[in-house]
């Protein structure tokens, strides 16, 4: 059983977004031609329980791939299928409200992820403990530092019993101690038979946490296999580019 499948998925953006009636009147209603492919005919299958790293340079389509898998972006072409409950953790501040306290934000985030109040109440203490933010749990989020917000986000996303977790470049923040605990948690997630997809520029982290790695370049898959092999090819390619 696959957790995520994609068949010939492309995501493209059209040129010259029409933002005003004036532009509309000038250009008419003809469809503009697609000018930029964020993903180009990507076909892949990620099995349930796999840990997969996604690497590639900026703009290669890594985040877009995660967003399609999470159902945030509809593919422009092709079909994507996801099975089981997916929790995406995209960038920083995943749906946080600065006026609300840490505790209230945990509730709000749980709701965004489709969880009930009771489910979140049951997880509350564990989430706060893992984030190490006990002293700040009742302070409004606007008083938190970026690193603190990231800790809270990671703690929530990994506590809500998802079958698949999508992590987008979230390991770059947080101090060394917290990162270590994050790594441990991701590994225990994977050991528990759950699916982890990790987008990162930190190749050591990918090597450590993921057996399989997919390398994206200009929206296309150019490497897919054992992490050691793909990362070695990627590094060699980068060295060749100078």
């Amino acid at each position, binding site marked *: *059983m696959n*957790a995520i499948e994609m068949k010939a*998925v*492309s995501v493209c*953006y059209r040129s010259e*977004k*029409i*933002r*005003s*009636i*004036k532009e*509309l009147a000038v250009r008419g209603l003809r469809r503009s031609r697609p000018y930029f492919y964020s993903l180009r005919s990507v076909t892949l299958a990620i099995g*349930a*329980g796999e840990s997969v790293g996604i690497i590639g340079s900026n703009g290669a389509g890594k985040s877009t791939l995660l*967003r*399609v898998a*999470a*159902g*945030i*972006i*509809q*593919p*422009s*072409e*092709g*079909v*994507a*299928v*996801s*099975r*089981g*409950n997916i929790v*995406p953790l*995209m*960038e920083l*501040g*995943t*749906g946080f*409200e600065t*006026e*609300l306290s840490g505790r209230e934000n945990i*509730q*709000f985030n*749980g*709701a*965004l*992820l*489709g*969880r*009930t*109040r009771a489910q979140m109440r049951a997880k509350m203490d564990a989430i706060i403990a893992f984030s190490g933010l006990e002293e700040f749990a009742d302070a409004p989020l606007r008083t938190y530092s970026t690193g603190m917000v990231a800790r809270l986000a990671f703690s929530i996303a990994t506590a809500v019993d998802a*079958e698949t977790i999508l992590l987008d470049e979230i390991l770059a923040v947080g101090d060394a101690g917290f990162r270590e605990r994050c790594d441990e948690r991701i590994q225990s997630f994977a050991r528990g*038979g*759950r699916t982890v997809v990790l987008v990162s520029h930190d190749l050591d982290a990918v090597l450590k946490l993921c057996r399989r790695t997919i390398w994206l370049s200009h929206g296309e898959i150019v490497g897919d296999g054992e992490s050691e092999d793909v990362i070695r090819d990627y590094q060699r390619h980068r060295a060749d580019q100078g």
Partner: protein
Amino acid sequence: MIVQHQERHYVAGASLRAADEIQDLAGHANLLFELVHRDLTIRYKRSVFGFLWTMMHPLLLMAIFTIVFSHLFRFQTPHYETYFLSAFIAWNFFAQTVTNSMASVAWNGPLMKRVRVPRSIFTLSAILSGMVNLVLSMVALIVIMLIVHAPLFLSLLFVPVSLLIVGIFTFGISLALTALSVFFADVREMVQAGLPALLYMTPVIYPVSIVPAPYRWIVERNPLSYLIEIVRAPIYYGQLPGPHALAAAVILSVISLVGGWLIFRKFAPKFEGRV
């Protein structure tokens, strides 16, 4: 570990189906609750009077309009404050909700880029928050009616039905305008400019009788006039709305809901790239 029923298919070009969206909204009932809670509390979190502002805003306007129109312009309308407020509360709900739902999608754009939530949830939460404010305003109105010794009629019991019809009408309009405003920034400006004009084309502040005959059709044929009428009749006139006005209001709200949804579903799958 994998639960079969949670399989989701994302197909290029597929448009939203109403049944799927309703199921999706039901699965996010808690989020709806949280969004409404957030709307109602955060806005006033740092203000001294907090929630009271919800009631003070229409009250201040009422004071202004009552002074201006019943004393300066001298309408021969008994209990003008009830006449005005019974309609203005419904109008205010409509105008505020349409504005808020457009703002809500713009505000929550970052959320939509990070988690998958039903696209219409922000519009629906704006409606529900508006409904809560509407009910509070109704309570304030009844208190005012008691203070000024305006008659309280048994027909007041019909008001919840009227408000529900107005709510459905507003939901449809909000869905359409929200979807359009994501793609065309002008829509928001047009609505902002158009709402005050629409207020004066609707018999909220003045009675229809003062409108000169050649222009009266504008006021009488205005869809909002029917919706205002079904709210005002049971509060101010102490009668159930006439069958003609009631039928018109129900038909208009159904057209609004269906039309609004059709426009919304066309644009909603592409929201992510635009907000």
